[in-house]
């Protein structure tokens, strides 16, 4: 196996003890916020919150440089202590940085730091400042555990931890019942995925035990995946993928993510765009050996990814809430990443993950900046012309749009293109087609979003307009940095055909294997041309249509007929789930309680008691007090006794 071979070379662990401080630093921040945050005030909270992540970032950089500067396949490890041990099972708190996780921690701490910084400004007026930073730091810590953990159980700690933070942050403004509800929904949908996650882990674990090596470290799983029985690797991979669909918002578990936009905008940026939602992709890439050992599972991953990419993109077309558009676009982009994984291009998936983190964080923060500037207005139909009031936001946002739309030269172009080329090259023509079509839709709705928000005339009320303003420096600075990254971030992975060295894929190769395209230059350029064409077509169409303002929605609706309203309603998936799952479950629960518990079981118990009591009542009447009756009873007793004895004797004689 190709993957196993690369794994074998990666046998040069450098044992260190500083990796543990990467997640620990934000955790200390959490404790600080809880214990002292409300007493010491905003400045201290903001400072400590950012500093904690900065420390992580510094250490992450150190780890990254160590890995990057060492021979390919080097890993840095930090074995802290044995966490669980029972029977054949054990799991350590052990952290590992290899090529793959080094990229991840850089993204998490880097983007994370920027978002912390942004939050200092964005949340400046919120009374629960300390709580917010506590959550944010906790989230960062959990995410870092997720990517640094060297085994599935430890990853699961981070996995559920980020879910928890997502729950808390979405419901941050808890007095609004809808927001609290959205948080709960996110947690529960994730939990469904998590159940798949643990069952997948169990399947693999026991199969490995049968092979004589019960372990859930990624190294073992990847190394021995090929020896697993086919059913075990397939079932394990698919169950784990169920977990991934939960966390990374894929069909059928994506429904929580759009609702999650209820949280404060930095949260959306951090959790629901840049980091947490990529956990599923990271996990599949991390376990590439397992997934490759069960090729059918990769088919499923790719298909689900492509379908999600397309489905979410179509919903994105019709949304009117600025954050909802971005949310569906996130779902869609995550679909692309899974598409990449599904066709075996793990490196391409991670590449897109990284570039997406840049531009999507940028877009969300930009949206937040707009919302902040327009006093919590989120409806793009009531925006327009914002570029005049918010030049920095506008410029950075525009770059983000271009990047996600796949305009050549920006980061999104390189990563998306690599995905599409890989899909085509591996013979998944259908998936490629979906991807291209999706790319043009993406370009369309992102342009629509941009035009409706920043171009034309302002459509909201005058008050808002007069008070509209550019955001403070703590907010714009991250925007600028992210915009820069969104532009240049792709250059680490410029493909050979464009004269690049594809360094990124090479760097990742020891972790996830190198996916050779195997296309000739002509085909590759042609594919590139097609996708660029699709993107430009989308941009052009949207630009012309929406220059006229939101009225163009109606044109589109007429063209698409009923479908458009379905898109706007997100295909009513929530209602369907509610009718098919939630309501029946609640009704069944209520019926169970009433019928089984109260009527049946207690009925039997109380019925027995009543029956015994009524026998008692009946027998009590026997004691009439009438001596004749008593006498009669005695005689009856005598008769019965004699009868019994005689019968017994007769039977005895007969027998």
């Amino acid at each position, binding site marked *: 196996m190709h993957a196993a071979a690369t794994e074998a070379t990666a046998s040069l662990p450098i044992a260190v003890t500083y990796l543990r401080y990467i997640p620990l630093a934000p955790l200390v921040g959490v404790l600080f916020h809880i214990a002292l945050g409300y007493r010491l005030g905003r400045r201290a909270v903001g400072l400590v919150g950012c500093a904690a992540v900065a420390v992580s970032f510094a250490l992450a950089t150190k780890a990254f440089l160590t890995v990057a500067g060492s021979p390919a396949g080097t890993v840095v490890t930090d074995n802290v202590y044995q966490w669980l041990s029972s029977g054949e099972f054990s799991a350590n708190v052990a952290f590992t940085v290899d090529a793959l996780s080094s990229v991840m921690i850089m993204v998490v701490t880097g983007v994370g730091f920027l978002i912390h910084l942004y939050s200092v400004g964005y949340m400046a007026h919120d009374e629960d400042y300390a709580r917010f930073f506590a959550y944010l730091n906790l989230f960062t810590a959990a995410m870092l555990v997720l990517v640094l953990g060297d085994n599935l159980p430890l990853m699961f700690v981070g996995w559920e931890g980020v879910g928890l933070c997502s729950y808390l942050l979405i419901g941050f403004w808890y007095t609004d019942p809808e927001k609290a509800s959205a948080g709960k929904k996110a947690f529960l949908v994730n939990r469904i995925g998590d159940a798949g996650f643990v069952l997948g882990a169990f399947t693999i674990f026991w199969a490995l035990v049968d092979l004589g090596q019960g372990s859930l470290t990624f190294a073992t799983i990847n190394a021995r995946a090929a020896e697993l029985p086919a059913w075990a690797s397939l079932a394990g991979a698919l169950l784990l993928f169920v977990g991934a669909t939960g966390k990374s918002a894929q069909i059928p578990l994506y429904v929580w993510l759009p609702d999650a936009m209820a949280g404060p905008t930095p949260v959306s940026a951090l959790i629901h765009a840049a980091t947490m939602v990529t956990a599923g992709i990271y996990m599949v890439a991390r376990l590439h050996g397992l997934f490759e050992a069960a090729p059918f599972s990769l088919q499923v991953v790719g298909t689900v990814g492509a379908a999600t990419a397309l489905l979410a993109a179509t919903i994105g077309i019709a949304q009117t809430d600025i954050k909802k558009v971005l949310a569906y676009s996130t779902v869609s982009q995550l679909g692309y990443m899974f598409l990449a994984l599904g066709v075996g291009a793990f490196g391409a998936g991670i590449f897109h993950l990284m570039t997406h983190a840049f531009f999507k964080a940028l877009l969300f923060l930009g949206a937040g900046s707009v919302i902040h500037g327009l006093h919590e207005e989120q409806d793009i139909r009531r925006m327009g012309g914002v570029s005049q009031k918010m030049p920095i936001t506008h410029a950075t946002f525009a770059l983000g749009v271009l990047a996600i739309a796949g305009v050549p030269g920006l980061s999104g172009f390189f990563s998306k293109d690599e995905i599409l080329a890989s899909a085509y090259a591996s013979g998944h023509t259908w998936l490629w087609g979906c991807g291209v079509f999706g790319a043009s839709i993406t370009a369309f709705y992102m342009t629509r979003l941009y035009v409706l928000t920043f171009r034309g005339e302002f459509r909201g009320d005058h008050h808002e307009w007069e008070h509209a303003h550019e955001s403070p420096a703590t907010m714009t600075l991250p925007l600028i940095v992210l915009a820069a990254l969104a532009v240049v971030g792709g250059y680490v992975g410029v493909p050979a055909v464009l004269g690049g060295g594809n360094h990124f894929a090479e760097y990742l190769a020891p972790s996830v294997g190198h996916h050779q395209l195997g296309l000739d230059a002509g085909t590759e350029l042609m594919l590139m041309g097609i996708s660029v064409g699709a993107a430009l077509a989308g941009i052009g169409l949207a630009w012309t249509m929406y220059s006229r303002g939101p009225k163009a929605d109606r044109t589109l609706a007429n063209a698409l007929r009923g479908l458009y309203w379905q898109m706007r309603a997100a295909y009513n998936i929530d209602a369907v789930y509610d009718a098919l799952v939630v309501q029946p479950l609640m009704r069944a629960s209520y019926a169970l309680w009433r019928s089984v518990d109260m009527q049946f079981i207690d009925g039997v118990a109380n019925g027995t008691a009543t029956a015994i009591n009524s026998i008692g009542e009946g*027998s*009590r009447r026997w004691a009439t007090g009438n001596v004749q009756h008593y006498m009669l009873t005695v005689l009856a007793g005598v008769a019965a006794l004699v009868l019994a004895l005689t019968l017994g*004797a007769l039977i005895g004689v007969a027998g």
Partner: protein
Amino acid sequence: MTQAINSGLPLIVACSWALLLIVVEMFSRDRRFVGVAWTTVLGFAATAAISLHYSGDPAVYGNALALDGYAVYFNLLVCALGAAAVLLSVEHLGDAGIVRGEYYSLMFFAVIGVVIMAAATDLIVMFIGLETMSMAVYVLAGIRKSDLRSNEAALKYFLLGALASALLLYGVALLYTMTGSTVLADVAKALSSTNYAASDHLVLLLATGLILIGFGFKIAAVPFHLWAPDVYEGAPTSVTAFMATAVKAGGFAALLRTMLEALAPMRAELAPVLWGAAAVTMTIGNVVALRQTSLKRMLAYSSIAHTGYLLVGVTAGTAEAGSSVMFYLAAYGAMNIGAFGVMVALARRGRGCENISDFSGLAQTHPALASAMALFLLSLTGIPPLGGFVGKFYVFTAALHAGLVWLVVIAALNSVISAAYYLGVVRTMYFDKAPDDVLPSARPYAAVVVAVAAVATVLLGVAPSPVLGTAARAFRLVLLG
């Protein structure tokens, strides 16, 4: 000769003492008869001491009596129970409106009857003991002459008792015609050595059946139990306490010896009947007790239920089972005397404190009494580590050893039912609010009896070994002798 006198000595002393009591009572000026009561207690003590001193002697008077370990055990037990009942009576007679000195001598005669029953090794002597006891108790039950209910109950008791006695006597007579003896050991010998024709066998069965009925009446086994609730309720509480414990012990003393010694060869045939009687008796007793509002009636039914448990031991029929019944009677005596004692302690003239509802909130007004009562009730339920539990445990063990698995299961489930009404009283005492008219403070004599009974109940549970050992030895000797 001296031996014969020694063995008869407890009886002689007891009878003399009883006569003495009649005289003492005549000369008693105290309308409360405290002196008479103490004389009675002294008499019990003397009887007990003498039987303890001369114990172990073989059967005398033509194999009619034996002061063996078995008899001594019952002597001690019944004297203790009698003494307790007497002490309960000291104040209660006044509270119950009884001004009759012969009360104590009657009680003494009843005890003498039990002593005879326990020592009798001849069915005729046993019958004499039974009648001595019964006659005394018939009168005691109706001693409240002015109380109609009490009189009616006593009359009922007498009529039914007479019927039962007649049946018993008839059974003994039939047995005599078949075996040619009324001496227990000889009966057993004849039964095991003779090969009876089928028709004769039927007669034998009839005889044993009638004997069983006679005893079954005294121990209130279903369906010969109907007198018990009425009589228990009608009699003064101190008498009820005596009947529920000492009289029952007497009945079992006679039944056990008859069944295990004389009728042992017929055990296999009698076992199914006993099995059924045990199951029905405990079940009916428990089930009906559930519905009682009068504590006295409830305890009456509970005592029927306990007869059922005891019959499990009789059914098993082994030496072990016999001693388990003996132990059970001791434990049962302690906790039942205690329970009635609590009622007596709170009873006043015109207010019997006989309904369960009278005990509402007792835990707050009389915490000590309430906890003692709770103790007795828990012991009656069979909650460890109290005497009632060890008794039940011993009986179950013996029964299981004899292979009576299902009977034990039925008994176990019956204990659950019993928990419902015993703890129903605990509930009333502890959970309910005390009524406005608070019960008076406890009568001192009764309180002391209650305390002693409580200690005995606990000791019989925590450190039952001495009593267990005595019972076990006593019974083994019976079967050997």
